C-alpha cells in the first residue's frame, strides 16, 4: 500500500531526467522501460494483496480465518498462484530478451569506448583517422550504433540509461552493445562499476544529433587544429608545450600525440571537464590545470598550480577554450 504513492510520484518526476531509464530515447530503453513499469505495477499489486491477506489473517471473521488458515490456502496462494504468474512473466521476459539481442542493421556505426581511471576515450574507427574525443559520445539519430567497450586498466561499466542498460568494460575482453537513439537530446552517463578512488567523478555526456550535425561534428574533430591568432592563446599553446602536457594529451595538427589522457583537439566544445566533474569554461579549465589533485584527488593529472604562473595558466586555458 505504501508503495503506491511514491510510485506515482516517481512517474511525475522520473520522466524528464537526462540520466534515467524511465525517459527512454530509443527502442531498447523503451522496451526495458515498459517491462519495468509492468514489473513495478505487478509487484505493487502482489504486495498489496499479500499484506491484505496478512491483515485478514488477524482481523477477518472466523470462517474466513479458517479458509486462510487451511493447507489448501497455502498451496493455492503459495504454490499455484506464483507458479502461474512467474511462468507468464518468464515467457514475456524471454521475448524482451530476444528482441534486445537480435541484430538489426548489418553494418551499424561502430564506436569504440575505452575506459580508464577515471575518464572515457571515444573513437569512431569507421569514420577515418582522427575521429576521436573524450568524455563525450556523439550519436546520429536513427542510426543503429554498436559500442565496442574496452578497458585500459580496471573494470568499469558504461551506462547511458536513456538508451540502454549497462555493459561492463573488462580488461582483456571486448563487450559489445547495440542500440538506436530515436530522438535527439543531451544525455548523461556514468561509470557504474566501482573502479577506484574517483569512481564517483567518472561521468560523460551522450549527445544525440541530427545526422547532418553529427557529420559536421565528425569533420571538425578530424580537422587539424589551426595555429592560434590571438597572442594570449599563442602564449598558452607555448606554455602547454613547455610543461610537457603533450606527453599525455594529444592535439591534432601538432606534435603532441599522447594517449594517456583525454584528446584535447576540440576540448573547448565539450559539455564538461574532467569526466563530468566540472563545467567547461576558461575559469574551470584554469582551475583544473592548477588544482586537479584538489578537485579530483587520485586522478592521473598533476596539479600545476605551483609550477605555472597565474598569467600563463590563464593563457593555456584561453587557448584550450578556443579549441572548438
Amino acid at each position: 500500500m505504501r508503495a503506491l504513492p511514491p510510485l506515482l510520484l516517481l512517474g511525475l518526476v522520473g520522466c524528464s531526467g537526462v540520466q534515467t531509464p524511465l525517459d527512454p530515447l530509443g527502442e531498447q530503453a523503451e522496451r526495458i522501460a515498459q517491462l519495468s513499469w509492468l514489473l513495478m505495477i505487478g509487484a505493487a499489486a502482489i504486495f498489496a494483496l499479500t499484506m491484505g491477506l496478512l491483515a485478514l489473517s488477524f482481523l477477518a471473521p472466523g470462517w474466513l480465518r479458517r479458509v486462510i488458515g487451511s493447507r489448501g490456502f497455502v498451496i493455492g496462494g503459495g504454490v499455484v498462484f506464483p507458479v502461474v504468474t512467474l511462468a507468464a512473466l518468464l515467457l514475456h521476459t524471454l521475448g524482451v530478451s530476444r528482441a534486445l539481442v537480435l541484430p538489426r542493421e548489418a553494418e551499424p556505426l561502430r564506436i569504440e569506448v575505452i575506459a580508464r581511471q577515471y575518464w572515457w576515450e571515444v573513437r569512431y574507427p569507421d569514420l577515418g583517422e582522427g575521429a576521436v574525443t573524450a568524455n563525450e559520445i556523439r550519436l546520429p539519430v536513427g542510426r543503429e550504433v554498436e559500442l565496442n567497450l574496452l578497458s585500459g586498466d580496471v573494470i568499469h561499466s558504461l551506462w547511458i540509461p536513456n538508451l540502454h542498460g549497462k555493459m561492463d568494460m573488462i580488461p582483456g575482453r571486448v563487450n559489445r552493445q547495440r542500440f538506436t537513439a530515436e530522438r535527439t537530446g543531451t544525455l548523461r552517463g556514468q561509470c557504474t562499476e566501482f573502479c577506484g578512488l574517483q569512481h564517483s567523478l567518472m561521468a560523460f555526456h551522450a549527445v544525440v544529433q541530427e545526422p547532418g550535425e553529427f557529420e559536421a561534428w565528425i569533420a571538425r574533430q578530424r580537422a587539424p587544429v589551426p595555429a592560434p591568432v590571438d597572442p594570449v592563446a599563442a602564449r598558452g599553446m607555448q606554455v602547454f608545450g613547455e610543461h610537457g602536457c603533450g606527453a599525455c594529451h594529444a592535439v591534432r595538427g601538432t606534435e603532441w600525440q599522447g594517449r594517456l589522457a583525454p584528446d584535447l583537439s576540440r576540448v573547448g566544445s565539450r559539455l564538461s571537464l574532467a569526466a563530468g566533474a566540472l563545467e567547461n569554461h576558461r575559469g574551470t579549465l584554469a582551475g583544473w590545470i592548477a588544482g586537479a589533485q584538489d578537485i579530483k584527488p587520485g586522478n592521473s593529472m598533476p596539479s600545476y598550480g605551483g609550477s605555472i604562473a597565474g598569467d600563463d595558466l590563464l593563457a593555456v586555458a584561453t587557448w584550450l577554450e578556443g579549441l572548438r
Partner: protein
Amino acid sequence: MDTAAGARSRTPNATPRPPEELERLEAAWAYPRGIGLLTEYNNNIIGPLFVATALLFFLLAGVLALIIRAQLAFPGMTLVDPATYNQVFTTHGTVMMFLFAVPAVEAVAITLMPAMLGTRELPFPRLGAYAYLIYLMGGLFFYGSIFFGAAPDGGWFMYPPLTSKQYSPGINTDMYLLGIGFIEISAIAGAIELIVGILRCRAPGMTLGRMPIYAWGMLVFAGMVIFAFPAVIIASTLLELERAFGWPFFLPEKGGDPLLWQHLFWFFGHPEVYVIFLPAAAMVSMIVPTMAGARLQAHGLVVMALVGTAFISFGLWVHHMYATGIPALSLSFFAAAGFAVSVPSGLQVFAWIATFASGRRIQWTAPTLFMLGFLFIFMLGGLTGVMVSVTPFDWQAHDTYFIVAHLHYVLIGGMVFPLLGALYYWAPAVGAALSDRLGKLSFWLLFLGTNLTFFPMHVSGLMGMPRRIYTYPSGLGLELWNLLSSIGAAVFALGALVLLVDVVLHFRPSAPEGQRRNYWNAGTPEWLENDSYGPRSIPRIRDRYPLWADPHLAREVAEGAHYLPMAATGRREALVTSPAEAIPQYVAVLPFPGWGHVVAAVGTCGFFFALTGELLVEAALFFALGFCGVLWWLWHGTDFGPLEPRVVDIGDGIRLPTHATGPVTHSWWAMVCTMLVSGTSFACLLGSWLFLWLVNGDAMWPPPGQGIPVGGLGLAAFGLYAGGGLLAWAAARALGRGPRWALWAALGLAAALFAAGIGADFQALRSAGIEPTTHAYGAATFAIFTWQAAHVGITLVMLGYTLARSLAGRLDGERRVTADNTMLFALYTAGQGITGLGLLHLFPRLLA
C-alpha cells in the same frame, strides 16, 4: 505424526532419582573458576557471548552506515574524503556480511540448538569455542584497521584487477583477503559442529519429521556453508597468491581473467544471501506458531522450501554478472532459476499467514511485531528480487541505488527483523526477559527507519544514481530522495539505541526469580528447564511440539524421569542418536574444558595477523604455537578409549555403550564433513583451471614454452598416492590384530609413499617446463598441485600423530578413533591427488 502422546505412559526412568546423581552431574558440568573460565566451552556461556559479539559488530558497522548517509545527505558534501569513504562503505558491507550476519545466525544456533534438540551439548563444543575465539579476535583486528586507514577499499566484492598489486599496492586488500579469509574458518567450523549435532544429537524419538523447523533451517545453513564458503576462500587465496607471488590468475595480459574472480566470488556470494536468510526464516517459523498459539501450517512444505531454496540458490550466481557480457541464453538460465527460487519463499510467506489465521489467541508482543515487520519488509525485498532477476530490468537497475534498496530490504527484512524478534523471543529461554515496552518502541523506530531510509533509494536508483559514489551532482533530481534516506538512517539509529538500552538494562544471563520457564507457552524443547548440564534428563520426544502435546513432559524431564539423568562415566556426556529417527546409539564422552583450543585460536589469529603485516618470522612462530595448540587439544581431549562403565542403562531398558568406533561415531561424521569442505575447495580449483582453459583456447593451453605434465611421472605419482592410501587403510583395518611393529611399519611406509608421490607430482610439472608466474596455465596448474601438497603435508602429520599415539599406548583395536580418522583423510588425499592428476595429465591429452 502430529498426534499427541495420547494416554500417559510410563516414563523412561523411575522417580525420585537418587540425590547423589544430580551432584555427580553438576560436578561434571561445573564451570572452571578464575582464569580457567576462559577454557570453558559450554554453550550456555559461549552462545550468549557469541550473540553479543555479533550484535556489537552490527552496531559498529551501523555507525559506518551513518557516516555514509551523512556524506550523501546533500550533493557535494565533503564530510569524509574519497579514500576514507571507500574504506567506510567497504568495511560496512564486509563487516555486516562476514562479521555480523553469518556469525549472528550461527551464534543463535550455538546458543539454542542443544536445548532445542534436547541434548546436553553439541558434539564438538571446543570446536565451537575455537570458532568463537578466532571470530572475536579476528573481527576486532579487522574492524580496528579502519582507524589506521588500513581497511580494505575495493568494495566487499573485491573485484580484480582493481584489487591487484598494481592498482591496490597497499595493505588494505591483504587485510580483507587474509583477515576475512580466516574468519571463514570460524563459519565452517561452526557449520560442521551444527551438522553433526543436528543429525546425531537429537533427543530420542525426535525424528526428522518431528525436528523443530529451526533445526532444519540450521541444517540447511550448515550444508550451504560447507558448499559455498570454500569458493570465497579459494578466490581469496588465488588473489593473495597473485598479489604476493605474481601467479597471474586474474591478469588478462598473462592469460588470466578478471571474470574468474566474479564467478568464484558470486558462487559463494549469492548462496550467502540464503545462508543468512534461511536460518532467519526458520526462526520466524518458530516464533509465529508460538505467538499464534498454533502449529506451523504446511510444515512439510516449509521444510521442502528451506531445502529447495538452498539447492537452487547455487544456480543464481550470475545474477550479479548480468552486465559482464555473458551470452544471452546463459543469462536466461539464471533468470529462470531466479523465478524458480522465489516460489519456495512465497510459499513460506503464505504458510506464516495461514499459521496466524489458524491461531486461536494471538499474543501481541514485541516478537509478534517484529514478525509482522519482517513480512512487510521482506515481501518488498522479495518482489524487487524477482524484478532484478529479470535480465533486461537488471541491466538498468544493476549497481544503482535500486539494488542498494533491494538488498537492504532483503537483508534487514529477511534477517535483522527476525533476529531481533528472536532476541526478544528467546531471551527468557537463556536468561532474563527483555522489556516488551521498549521492544515495541524499538520496533516502530526500526520499522519506520528502514522504510524511510531504503524506500526512497528505489527512486534514486531509477533516477540514475549509481552505487559506491561518495558524492553526486545536484540537478539530477536526487536531492530529495537522498535527504529522506539520511533522515531515515537517523531514525533507524535511534531504534537501535533503544534496543541497546533495553539489552543493557534488562538482559541478565540467568532468569530472575519468578520468571515463568515456558515464557510464551511455546511447544518446543528449548523451553524445558535448562542448566549448565542442559536438561536434567534427555526428553523422549513423541511430537513436533512436545510441550503442547504432553503437559507433563516438562516436569518429568526436570525430575530426571527421562533418558540419561546421570553422568554415567562421571564426565560430561552427550547422547548420540541415529540421523533419521533419533534412535539412541551410544553415550559420547565429551572432553573437560582445556587450554588447547584457546592456544590454537591465539596461534591461528597471530599467524594471519602477522602474515597480513608481512612479518614472516612472527607468522612462523604463531603457526608453530597454533599447531602445538591443536596437537595438545587432540592429544588430551579426544579418543579417550573405553571408560567405565562400558555399558549404561539410559532408561526404558535401553543399554548403550559409552564407547563407539567406526562409521557410527560423531567423529567419523565430522571427518566426512571436513572432506566435503576440502572436496568443494578442490572442485573450485579444478573449475578455475577449466574456466581459464575455456577463456584461453586450446592453442594457449599450455602456452608456448610450457607443456603437458610428463606422463610417466604422473603415472608414478598415481601409483604412489594409491599405495599410500591403501597402506593407511590396511593399517587401520589390521589395528589391534597384528603386532605393533607392523602397524608402525605400515604407517611409516604410507608416509614415505605419500611424500614420494607429491615429489613425482612436482617433478612431472617441472620437467614439462610448467612455471606458475608467467601464464595462467602454470598458475592454475600449480594451484591444484599446492592444494594437494598441503593435503599430503597434513596426511604426513596425521600419520605421525597416529604413530605417536601407538607408541604412547593410546591406540589399540578398541581405542582407534585416531587411526580411523587418519585412514579417512589419507584415502581422501589419495583420491584427490588422483583426480588432480586426471585433469592435469589426461584432459589435455584427450583434447590433443
